[in-house]
């Protein structure tokens, strides 16, 4: 026994396992106590409510949701809403952030000023205020009856409405095939076929697709476009970009872009001046220096903080609840109120966000592993 205690290895092992057991016991007892107290108060527990129908509608969803949908389906719709607005935000904020970062590092004083002003304004106002601002702006547009018409596009406080193609399932399949084939044609290396052949191939494919769409898969007289028309209190037909979605997206993109701009700028500035000068000395143009040397090297430097920012922006989508956008958080919140299954729904809420954000950081880390300079950690 004394010999065992004298062994440092054993002591460390005992210390660590003792700690783990202790933490485990605390967690276990918390769960047990919680469970017993809930049972004592006569509160129903478990996930059986997920099978029940909700009885309330959802204003915006990418999958069909009615008051007869089950909680599981409505929560899934909420998660999709969060992902839709979240991933669009990441994409657009990154593009805008890149442009602004190039402004900020450029030698043109006016561009620098624009970039700096943008960052200072949008970074220093809380995101919820920005979202409120855009929402107030969009909802104070004219009512549907006095809507602003820009050709076929209609703008009112019910959103931005524009015509949509009336595509059937078969049309969509053809479209997908055409896109894939065009992509494939463009992907064939230019040195094998020559640029002319590639583009003409793509052109022929697109033309074939439109011809097929017009001729074979359409009933005679059926219009190709659905145009928004005022009918009673609302517009019917076309696609509507709702103010809740638009305000949330605009607010998050403008806010996120300010941060992403600074991350990208930091990355660009971290690239060794000598490497850029070496590129210029080799006769590369300014654009080529940026594309071939500066951006690839900058990406390595900025990826870790960019991951952080992406995860943060994804969580910021929860401000949608304030302006009536039914994101995952809003749906969970309403479900809690309707079913009272607080703990279960909060667990689902956390699981949903961990799933999305862990996927983001997992993908970003894979990219980071792939592009980082080998041999450095």
């Amino acid at each position, binding site marked *: 026994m004394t010999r065992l205690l004298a062994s440092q290895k054993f*002591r460390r092992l*005992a*210390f660590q396992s*003792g*700690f783990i*057991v*202790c933490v485990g*016991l*605390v967690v276990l*007892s*918390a769960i047990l*106590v919680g469970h*017993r*107290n*809930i049972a*004592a*108060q*006569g*509160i*129903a527990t478990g996930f059986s409510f997920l099978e029940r129908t909700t*009885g*309330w*509608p959802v*204003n915006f969803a990418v999958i069909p949701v009615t*008051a007869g949908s089950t909680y599981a389906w409505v929560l899934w719709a909420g998660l999709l809403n969060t992902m839709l607005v979240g991933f669009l935000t990441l994409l657009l904020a990154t593009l805008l952030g890149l442009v602004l970062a190039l402004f900020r590092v450029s030698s043109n004083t006016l561009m620098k000023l624009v970039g700096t002003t943008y960052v200072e304004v949008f970074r220093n106002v809380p995101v919820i205020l920005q979202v409120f601002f855009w929402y*107030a702006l969009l*909802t*104070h547009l004219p*009512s549907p009856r006095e809507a602003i018409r820009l050709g076929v596009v209609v703008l009112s*406080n*019910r959103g931005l409405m524009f015509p949509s193609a009336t595509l059937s399932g078969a049309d969509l399949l053809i479209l997908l095939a055409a896109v894939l084939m065009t992509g494939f044609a463009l992907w064939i290396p230019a040195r094998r076929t020559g640029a002319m052949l590639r583009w003409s191939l793509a052109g022929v494919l697109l033309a074939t697709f439109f011809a097929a769409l017009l001729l074979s898969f359409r009933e005679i007289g059926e219009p190709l476009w659905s145009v928004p028309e005022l*009918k*009673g*209190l*609302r517009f*019917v037909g076309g696609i509507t970009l709702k*103010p*809740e979605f638009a305000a949330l997206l605009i607010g998050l993109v403008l806010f996120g872009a300010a941060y992403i701009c600074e991350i990208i700028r930091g990355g660009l500035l971290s690239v060794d001046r000598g490497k850029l000068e070496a590129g210029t000395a080799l006769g590369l143009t300014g654009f080529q220096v940026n594309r071939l040397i500066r951006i690839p090297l900058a990406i390595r430097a900025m990826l870790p903080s960019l991951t952080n920012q992406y995860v943060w922006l994804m969580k910021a989508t929860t401000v949608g*609840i*304030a*302006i*009536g956008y*039914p994101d995952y958080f*809003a749906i969970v*919140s*309403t479900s*809690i*109120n*309707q*079913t*009272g299954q*607080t703990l279960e729904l909060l667990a689902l809420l956390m699981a949903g966000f961990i799933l999305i954000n862990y996927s983001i950081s997992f993908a970003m880390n894979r990219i980071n592993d792939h592009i980082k300079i080998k041999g450095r950690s």
Partner: protein
Amino acid sequence: MKNTFIGLATAALVALTGASTAQAQGQGLLDTIITRDSLLCTGHNGSYLGFAEVDAAGAWQGFDIEFCKALATAILGSPNKLQVIPVSWAQRFPALQSGDVDVIVKVTGWTQTRDTELGLQYSRPYFIGPFYVMAKKELGATGIADLEGGVFCVNAGTTVERVLTDYMASKGIQYESLAFEKGEELRSALYAGRCDAIAGFGPFLSATRVEAPDPEAYQILGDVLALEPEGIVVRQGEDDLLDVINWTVSALLMAEESGITQANVDEIKANPPSPTIARLLGVTPGVGTRLGISDDFAYNVIKAVGNYGEIYDRTVGDGSRYKLPRGLNNLWNQGGLLYPLVLD
């Protein structure tokens, strides 16, 4: 070293289970409130006009807050022994279950899920709330059917969402629903014209109209979506507290029925016209001790907040800026649905 950890783990376990035992098996909530000398009651996150609103001085007022005051007075003798905890609609049940509030007085509709699965217990309805739709006058609607295809804004996570869905489904009216978490956002969406109409509790709609930049631009349509009885809510098993709540509400109604007001309660107590009123005001002892509170609780309550009619008038009725008619919330002998219990 290992022993230290086992000691710690045991201590943690004892602390956790011990704490829960005190809560589960110890004294009832009524005794806890008396020991604490303060009642924790629900407010609102922001203002729910007419029912729980914060005035310019930062003090809570409104119909529900008056009932919180009445309960604090009945149990603890003074309306000031009240702590109003601001909670949202969605937070109210978790707040009650976790003990952050003692009672929910927050126009809470009596639904079966809440009564059973949430482990709640309701008092007798202290308010009858009809649901209506309020639309913009310029739409020229005379009934809900005229709003076909319109956007209806509602409070997220309330019974209104379901009530409206059911009504529209039964009448076959197409509409679009938009839910807001906070009353302020809902109102500004209506005023900005994002919605054609809002559906909700009658009093809430009148309050929303009064607050509007142009109150004349809105009208409450005659169609009643549904009728909802609102009760005061406690946790299942807090029977002592529930008894006090029911008899306090009953005392307020009995006071109105017998013409006892804040102004004349002293006079009537000095010279009670009937044995029942003598019992009610604690001149003849008994009615309070049975509930575990003071015998003159009803006297204190009436002295502090007045009778049911006075509370109504002051907060949402003719004496307030909302001018909500009594309607169903009148006494049984005035064409309403409310009545006191028998005080023997």
